[in-house]
């Protein structure tokens, strides 16, 4: 029952603030066509489809996978639709892995997308809950207080977030699919408007249109494919309740539990030493330092020091987000799958200009909700 699964195809769209050249279906098909081409497969080779996206309010279509079923080649196939907030792209990929690991499916297509330009994301992410004063202004407004708490707790210097943002852009400049590729300087970020104090504009992810698709295959099917696959050594998705007294949103317990599960599953005892690169979900620059701690790459309070020393840059000890990450492209529903897909490309050795030399083992990570949902996998170039 511990069957292996592998990534045999990766496809993503050009990410941009507005993809006016394609419909929702066209956007999704751009990613799917590329993933199928990458895997040397056609729609008829796919046994089941797993679709993920963040709130349907972003586009104004309820359960859009229903009208997209034809576009996805899913007619008369099994399909499920996942929604786990910001982590959804990653949990969608993991749901596809589950399908394959049952032994009932040889090849499963996982697709995630967001066409944020077709609605108003700031509105859709600022829920006016009934009987509650509407104060939260978008995701930035929600997360900014925890960034402040991180800064207070670790007494880190103020340039850590800006440094992270500058590095992300540098990486994104090498990624042909990224939405934001222009370089920024530390001064650019420091002098950018403060949107949700302490979060600056330059430390904030864009709002993107984009999609990602992965083909997940069984061991036998992967070995028959045209290319070297990325072997999925482990994967896990966990979620925790919101209103737990003392729940730490700076370093959530769910994130630690999920990380422990994927490390154990992959036989990793020292992630800092054994992982070659990681794609982690950083929608606001400060979260890179926070997640480095939460993921156990260092002791609590030490995450910002890794960034300060530049050890997470390309060519350094543990390149983080060589693709530029969420700070350079954020089609919300797809962002988590992009993290997992980029991790897979790294261990396949096919990340192009942002390839980390010799990457053998990589982590893909996403989170969502009020830092409640976590989904991760470890991929490797070896079975």
């Amino acid at each position, binding site marked *: 029952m511990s069957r292996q699964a592998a990534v045999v195809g990766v496809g993503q769209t050009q990410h941009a603030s507005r993809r006016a050249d394609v419909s929702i279906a066209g956007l999704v098909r751009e990613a799917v066509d590329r993933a199928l081409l990458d895997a040397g497969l056609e729609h008829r080779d796919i046994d089941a489809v797993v679709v993920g996206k963040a709130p349907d309010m972003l586009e104004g279509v309820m359960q859009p996978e229903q009208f997209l079923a034809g576009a996805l080649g899913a007619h008369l196939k099994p399909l499920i639709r996942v929604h786990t907030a910001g982590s959804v792209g990653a949990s969608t990929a993991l749901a596809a892995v589950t399908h394959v690991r049952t032994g009932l499916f040889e090849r499963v297509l996982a697709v995630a997308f967001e066409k944020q330009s077709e609605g108003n994301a*700031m509105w859709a992410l600022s829920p006016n809950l009934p009987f509650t004063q509407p104060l939260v*202004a978008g995701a930035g407004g929600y997360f900014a207080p925890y960034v*402040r*708490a991180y800064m207070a707790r670790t007494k880190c210097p103020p340039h850590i977030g800006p440094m992270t943002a500058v590095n992300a852009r540098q990486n994104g400049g090498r990624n042909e699919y990224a939405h934001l590729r222009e370089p920024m300087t530390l001064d650019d970020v420091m002098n950018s408007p403060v949107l949700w*104090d302490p979060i600056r504009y330059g430390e904030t992810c864009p709002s993107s249109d984009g999609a990602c698709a992965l083909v997940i295959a069984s061991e036998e099917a992967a070995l028959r494919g045209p290319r070297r696959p990325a072997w999925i050594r482990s994967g896990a998705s966990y979620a925790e309740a919101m209103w737990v007294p003392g729940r*730490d949103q700076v370093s959530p317990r769910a994130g630690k539990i999920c990380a422990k599960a994927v490390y154990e599953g992959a036989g990793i005892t020292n992630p800092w030493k054994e992982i070659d690169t990681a794609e982690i979900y950083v929608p606001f620059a400060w979260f890179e330092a926070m997640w480095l701690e939460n993921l156990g790459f260092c002791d609590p309070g030490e995450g910002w020091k890794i960034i300060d020393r530049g050890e997470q840059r390309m060519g350094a000890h543990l390149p983080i987000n060589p693709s530029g990450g969420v700070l350079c492209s954020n089609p919300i529903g797809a962002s988590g799958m992009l993290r997992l897909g980029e991790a897979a490309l790294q261990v396949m050795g096919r990340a192009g200009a942002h390839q980390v030399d010799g990457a053998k083992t990589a982590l893909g990570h996403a989170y969502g909700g009020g830092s409640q949902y976590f989904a991760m996998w470890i991929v490797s170039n070896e079975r």
Partner: protein
Amino acid sequence: MSTSGPPKEPVKYVEKQLHLPYCYVAGDYKVRYLAALKDKTILGSKCSRTGKVFVPPIVASPESFAPCDELIPVADRGVVTTFCIVNIPVIGRSIELPYVAASVALDGADISIYALIQECAPADVRMGMRVEAVWKPDGERQGSHEDIIHFRPTGEPDAPLASFMHRL
């Protein structure tokens, strides 16, 4: 029949304005919570297993999974555990920018509420600052979250970081 196809220049967008009315049930706990605001009282619910207090009241503790079967008042003052200063607008919101949205741990409660901090410059708000509710005058309170206009500094000494860092 022609096979040249329709005009080359496509229609770019199909617009749709959605109008979806909803009518939300508050739930009995929330009804009592809102009614108590009229009397300048903030109610929380107490976990039957751990004794921890949730504001606004919820029917079960997510921590212990046990019911919270008792409603008790908590203070209308507490400590700012963390906050952000909002500088950008949201459609349909009328609060003047910039404003401070804070997590406030009310005295007697085990989780924080979101609150608007006013009557001081945003730059003067601090983690640990003591704040109190500013209520609408008698006769104007309707039993709604708007009965508390905002929170303001009390002028008491700040709470030390260690005293609230575990309950942001």
